[in-house]
């Protein structure tokens, strides 16, 4: 399993080591961190299913999560190299931001930063979607293929 490990040193303890990411990854740090978590879950699920190859990974990303799809795909492909997920297709399903108003008992899409009920303009709404960072399904090839 290929993993880029974030080492960090602490002043009050013995440093674990110190490792800088390559310069070309600097601007993708948020997505890299998320891609690492995706890869860990994908590889452990694939291993459990005795997969020979991972063909496709479908993830859900909320509009509020601040994740750039292109950057995430770049980081995913980079981490997938030399693993059974190399060449796997990362499919990103964007989830819109939705709110729920308990006064009107209805839910609605939040667009253009209008974080209030579209019917009664109540601002005390619950966010019911839009923060997703979730792995949905994997498509794999196993011994039977």
């Amino acid at each position: 399993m290929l993993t880029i490990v974030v080492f960090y040193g602490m002043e009050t303890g013995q440093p674990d080591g110190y490792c800088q990411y390559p310069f070309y990854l600097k601007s993708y740090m948020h997505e890299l961190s998320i891609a690492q978590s995706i890869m860990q879950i994908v590889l452990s699920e694939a291993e459990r299913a005795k997969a020979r190859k991972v063909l496709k990974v479908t993830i859900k990303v909320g509009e509020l999560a601040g994740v750039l799809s292109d950057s995430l795909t770049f980081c995913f492909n980079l981490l997938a190299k030399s693993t059974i997920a190399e060449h796997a297709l990362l499919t990103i399903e964007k989830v819109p931001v939705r709110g729920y108003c308990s006064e009107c008992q209805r839910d609605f899409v939040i667009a253009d930063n209008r974080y209030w009920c579209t019917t009664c303009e109540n601002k005390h709404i619950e966010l019911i979607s839009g923060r997703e960072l979730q792995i949905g399904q994997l498509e794999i090839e196993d011994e039977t293929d």
Partner: protein
Amino acid sequence: MKQIEVQKDILSSNEAIAAENSTIFSQKGIYVLNLMSSPGAGKTTLLERTIELLKNTLHLGVIEGDIATSYDADRIRAHGVPVTQINTGGACHLESSMIKKALTAFDLDVLDLLIIENVGNLVCPAEFNLGEDAKIMILSVTEGEDKPLKYPLMFRLSRALIINKVDLLPHTNCSLKKIIEDATSLNPDVSIFETSCTHMTGLNAWKVWLEKEIHTKRTRSIADG
């Protein structure tokens, strides 16, 4: 070919450790703040002022998160408060596992308040829970009024918003009214403080708010045994 239903949160391992941290903080009755802002908004200066206001009555601890250097930890240490520096080595935010490890540097039995200064960044820190009681957002007026709507998640999740460097308002075209309107439309329950760490204004209201929060948590911890 076979399809596997995973349905798992990508950040679930961070969430699990954040929950462990939170349990430790509750057991020890420690109130924990996660300070977030863009670089240069005045997090460390605000932290220094907060320490000066509280260090005679409370036992404080500070975790400093930075990509590199121990400049901030050195500044905090000069106030006589225990501090640990985490260098993320390039990563743009702190994660719960880093905090768990950093906790070994503190005597948790005596701490009342632990302040975590996150890496300066308006995007990533909001996604990674650390086990804190409250996320606090600091926005300086020199950054402009457009920030709440550009970075909605961080403003949505923060319990308090500190609008800093208000002494510089006459020199900018930033509208304080617009910041407050947008921040409250994203987060109607957010507590807002207008501060200047240079002129020492607005800090007392922040101190009173914080003391009340700490008191509430401590009372709850005692009640829960």
